[in-house]
């Protein structure tokens, strides 16, 4: 595998480009390559950062002096709502994801991410969702209930009209992109590392991204569920959050912050990953305490799910819970402290050199440590009671997010700029940019702590003179404008460098990680041959790696077969197990995202017939997408590989598709658990919770429906097991039989529902049960559709003994479907009996 290919670089490059090349013109919309998609994410995110920043400047202008009337209250409310929403959902998460999508495969020594069409789909969902959301601002009907959308303020009574719907639908649409990037990154990091790269050889950045991606997988579903429930309340009158009909507005706060707190670390971790990547390069030594940092990152991920209640200390929660969440919130200081001191020790024992990115890292450290310390203060309950919802929190949060996220991102931007463009930025402009931003930022937000302590609440469009708030507010506004100049300077620097920057050459910073072994700027295939070393600093150990990679002297340099290929490796050891063949460019992601945005718009304007059509079209497109896979003529009809090579992934049972399915189901499970949490929460806490006299569902037919489903799943598992043993007789018949069983189960379930006494608009009790039934029907229905398609594919010869992987991919879905059925059954039928009620 390791000998030279005997061709020159240019010829190899041409051959690879014939397979990997990106089309131009309109067909650029079909590009699925991670480099292109990553850059799109980053550029789009950058544009939204400027829009969000502009809104901030408008607000700072309004608040510069007391009793100003430049901006009316209604517009001001829209501005702060949209500023938060844009910065969180349209800027921070996408730009960090874009960076990860761009960098991760290169750092892992892979040619692309494992679900390239999903990357493209995620981007278009993000773009269209953002455009829909931003259009509300242009139309003057932007959401104005705050980025946290607390009910009842955001419900149909207090936020009439479509403004809140824009938020709920738009953000949910954008979250599809976040979750799909999350799934894709997890699977790619675990399954596509180059030959021999064990988990502990992985660049630290990839560890950070792995944890971030898993946090997205678990953290976003509670908000997706909350948004769906609130949208159902607004448009269909199902009272999940309406206290009079048995709901509770506090449930929204729990769901929101179950997402909202991990979100902060979802944003911070990738930025800290940038710090851990850059610092050793500029300290000219490997990072110290690699294992400590990995542990700290994982611990951060876990702890961050246990402290959402610290956003809710003022709602009057029990004192024991307050002590617990206070402590949990402070515990996060430990893994953060470990990272900071590991960075410090790296600098201490290294030979630091000074470049512009280092300047931003120093700025990061100072601002972030300050923000972390005020965070510990805020975790202390009595202090929190005083400063919660004041400008103190605004200051704290900007120290954490601006300092903890934006500063490292700009450091990273400068660091990878030569990688994006092949040119170096200017030192002088960059220094101006840094100092203006640093000074401006601290002027704005250091003073703002005081403003908050002096009693100024958040989210007020103006304030009277004479409360001591005038001077600090003026200072904050001036600081804001200085910051804006600093950011403008950075942008100017970047714009100019494309023309005037000096060529970067190869590896301009003398970095150690594999992304610098690609061409600069990189070609779509990343590497002609995949370097296979079990080492942490490939470029320090092999300074000529870039040349030998491009000459095809490493592994997997074959391209004659015309497939896009990369190594599929063991999740832990990195030992090669299969060759993953990747799909090429496709219109499907673009069309599918387009169909979903039609769905989103039709829900906004409440044209449900159009919505139904859009659902149908989206489904057909997504199924078509899944159709072009495995042994399909457009995927990999020919399973031939070089002698001595492992098989193609579609000819195995353990494909990335299976991993993708399992990770998706983790997200799905988080959504279901959130729903279950909502059910139990309302049952125990809602002040006017009502349980009907008689059970709303007939339990006997429900039981039969569940039995049918269980039999279907057992049969399915048996089918896959037989396939593993090499038996595929009557495969098609079995699949048809399972589909019929599943269909009967669905029919029975619909019958039970139609026959029930549920009135979902009357009580929260009935509304939650209805959502559980909807959830079940969605999963059962999709299981049937997928199984029918598999039977059809068996007939076409795409699935069978030789290409079994798709059946193994569908298996966990069936399994999940039966698990949620019985859990739902226990929750809505058995729990009330056990409770001694109905």
């Amino acid at each position, binding site marked *: 595998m390791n000998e030279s290919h005997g061709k020159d670089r240019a010829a190899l490059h041409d051959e690879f480009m014939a397979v990997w090349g990106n089309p131009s013109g309109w067909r650029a919309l079909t590009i699925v390559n991670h480099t292109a998609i990553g850059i799109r994410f980053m550029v789009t995110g950058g544009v939204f950062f400027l829009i969000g920043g502009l809104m901030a400047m408008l607000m700072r202008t309004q608040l510069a002096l007391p009793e100003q009337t430049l901006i009316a209250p209604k517009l001001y*409310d829209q501005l702060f709502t949209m500023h938060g929403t844009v910065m969180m959902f349209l800027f921070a998460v996408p730009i960090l994801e874009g960076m990860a999508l761009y960098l991760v495969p290169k750092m892992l020594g892979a040619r692309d991410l494992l679900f390239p069409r999903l990357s493209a789909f995620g981007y278009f969902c993000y773009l269209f969702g953002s455009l829909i959301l931003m259009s509300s601002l242009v139309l003057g009907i932007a959401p104005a209930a705050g980025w946290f959308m607390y009910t009842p*303020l955001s419900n149909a009574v*207090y936020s009439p009209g479509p403004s809140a719907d824009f938020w709920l639908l738009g953000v949910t649409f954008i979250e599809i992109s976040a979750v799909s990037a999350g799934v894709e990154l997890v699977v790619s990091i675990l399954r596509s590392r180059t030959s021999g790269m064990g988990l502990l050889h992985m660049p630290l950045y990839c560890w950070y991204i792995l944890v971030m991606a898993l946090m997205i997988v678990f953290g976003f579903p509670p908000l997706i569920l909350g948004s769906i429930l609130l949208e159902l309340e607004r448009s269909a009158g199902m009272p999940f959050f309406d*206290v009079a009909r048995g709901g509770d507005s506090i449930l929204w706060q729990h769901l929101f912050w179950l997402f909202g707190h991990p979100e902060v670390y979802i944003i911070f971790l990738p930025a800290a990953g940038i710090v851990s990547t850059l610092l050793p390069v500029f300290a000219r030594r490997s990072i110290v305490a690699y294992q400590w940092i990995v542990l700290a990152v994982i611990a951060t991920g876990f702890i961050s799910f246990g402290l959402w209640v610290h956003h809710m200390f003022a709602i009057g929660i029990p004192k024991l819970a307050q002590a617990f969440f206070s402590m949990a919130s402070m515990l996060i200081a430990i893994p953060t402290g*470990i990272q900071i001191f590991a960075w410090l020790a790296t600098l201490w024992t290294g030979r630091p050199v000074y470049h512009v990115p280092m300047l931003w890292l120093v700025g990061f450290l100072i601002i972030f440590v300050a923000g972390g310390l005020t965070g510990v203060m805020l975790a202390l309950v009595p202090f*929190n009671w005083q400063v919660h919802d004041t400008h103190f929190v605004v200051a704290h949060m900007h120290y954490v997010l601006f300092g903890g996220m934006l500063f490292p991102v700009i450091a990273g931007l400068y660091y990878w700029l030569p990688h994006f463009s092949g040119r170096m930025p200017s030192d002088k402009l960059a220094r101006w940019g840094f100092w203006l931003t640093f000074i401006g930022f601290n002027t704005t937000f250091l003073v703002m702590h*005081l403003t908050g302590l002096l009693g100024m609440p958040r989210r007020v469009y103006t304030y009277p003179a004479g409360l*001591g708030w005038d001077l600090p507010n003026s200072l904050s506004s001036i600081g804001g404008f200085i910051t804006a100049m600093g950011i403008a300077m950075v942008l100017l620097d970047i714009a100019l460098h494309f023309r005037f920057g000096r060529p970067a050459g190869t590896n301009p910073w003398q970095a150690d990680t594999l992304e610098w072994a690609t061409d600069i700027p990189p070609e779509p295939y990343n590497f002609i041959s995949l370097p296979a070393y079990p080492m942490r600093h490939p470029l320090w150990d092999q300074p000529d790696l870039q040349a030998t990679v491009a000459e095809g002297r490493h592994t997997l340099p074959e391209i004659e077969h015309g497939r896009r290929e990369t190594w599929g490796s063991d999740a832990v050891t990195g030992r090669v197990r299969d060759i993953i063949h990747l799909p090429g460019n496709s219109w499907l992601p673009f069309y599918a995202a387009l169909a979903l945005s039609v769905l989103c718009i039709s829900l906004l304007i409440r044209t449900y017939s159009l919505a139904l059509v859009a659902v149908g079209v989206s489904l057909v497109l997504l199924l078509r997408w899944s159709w072009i896979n495995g042994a399909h003529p457009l995927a990999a009809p020919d399973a031939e590989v070089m002698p001595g090579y492992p098989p193609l992934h579609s000819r195995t049972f353990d494909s990335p598709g299976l991993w993708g399915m399992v990770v998706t189901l983790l997200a799905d499970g988080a959504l279901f658990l959130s729903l279950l949490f909502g059910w139990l929460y309302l049952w125990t806490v809602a002040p006017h919770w009502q349980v009907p006299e008689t059970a709303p569902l007939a339990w006997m037919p429900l039981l039969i429906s569940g039995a049918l489903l269980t039999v279907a799943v057992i049969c399915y598992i048996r089918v896959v097991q037989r396939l593993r043993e090499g038996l595929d007789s009557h495969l098609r018949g079995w699949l048809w039989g399972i589909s019929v069983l599943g269909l009967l189960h669905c029919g029975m379930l619909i019958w039970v529902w139609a026959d029930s006494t549920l009135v979902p608009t009357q009580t929260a009790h009935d509304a939650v049960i209805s959502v559980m039934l909807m959830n079940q029907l969605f999963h059962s229905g999709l299981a049937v559709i997928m199984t029918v398609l598999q039977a059809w594919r068996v007939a076409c010869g795409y699935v069978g003994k030789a290409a079994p992987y798709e059946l193994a991919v569908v298996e966990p879905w069936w399994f999940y479907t039966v698990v949620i059925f019985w859990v739902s059954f226990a929750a809505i039928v058995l729990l009330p009996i056990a409770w001694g009620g109905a």
Partner: protein
Amino acid sequence: MPIGIIFFLGGCSGPQSSLDPAGPSALAIAGLWWGMFGFFTLVLVAVTALWLYAMWRKPKSYTEGQTRRIYHQWIVGGGLILPIITIAVLIGFGIPLGYRMLPLPMEEPPLRIDVTGHQWWWEVRYPESGAVAKNELHLPAGVPVDIHVTSSDVIHSFWVPRLAGKIDMIPGHINILRIQADAPGRFRGQCAEFCGKGHARMVLAVEAHTPEAFKAWLEAHQHE
């Protein structure tokens, strides 16, 4: 530190300043703030100084073993011991302090005042005497008072910074906040949870009276 200078230049007083406490809860929290502020400023300065020194000092060569010893010391000292001690001290002080602010049962139950939030005004009722007021809260100085809060529409938050921390006013729920003004005087309260267009103007005028004056006020406002 610049923040310190600003504090002393700008002053901490103001009709709504939490740093100008006029009741036991606000006083305790202000004390907590100054303690944390002092200690954390030290931590920030120390970490920044170490970092800058590490960057600018003359590099030294370390063996593998020395490096390991250095980072173990740093990580254990700065990443484990420092935060754990800080957390223990903060929790040890802060949680009991917060506990004492809660409306715990007292031998003689304190005066109860019901405050209901509306978009965008405060409805104040004195259940014992039947007195009613709008956008103003009168209370006797020198004794604890229990404010029972709820809302008739969206979520609001009851907050008089010079007397105590805030508590949310949530439809369907009743929360209790115990406050006390040490001496007669006027204070400013303001809604602290965003509640819509009029949020910035939802202000509560608070006045603490001597017991006699309070009694007189109650009598004068009984049949409004």
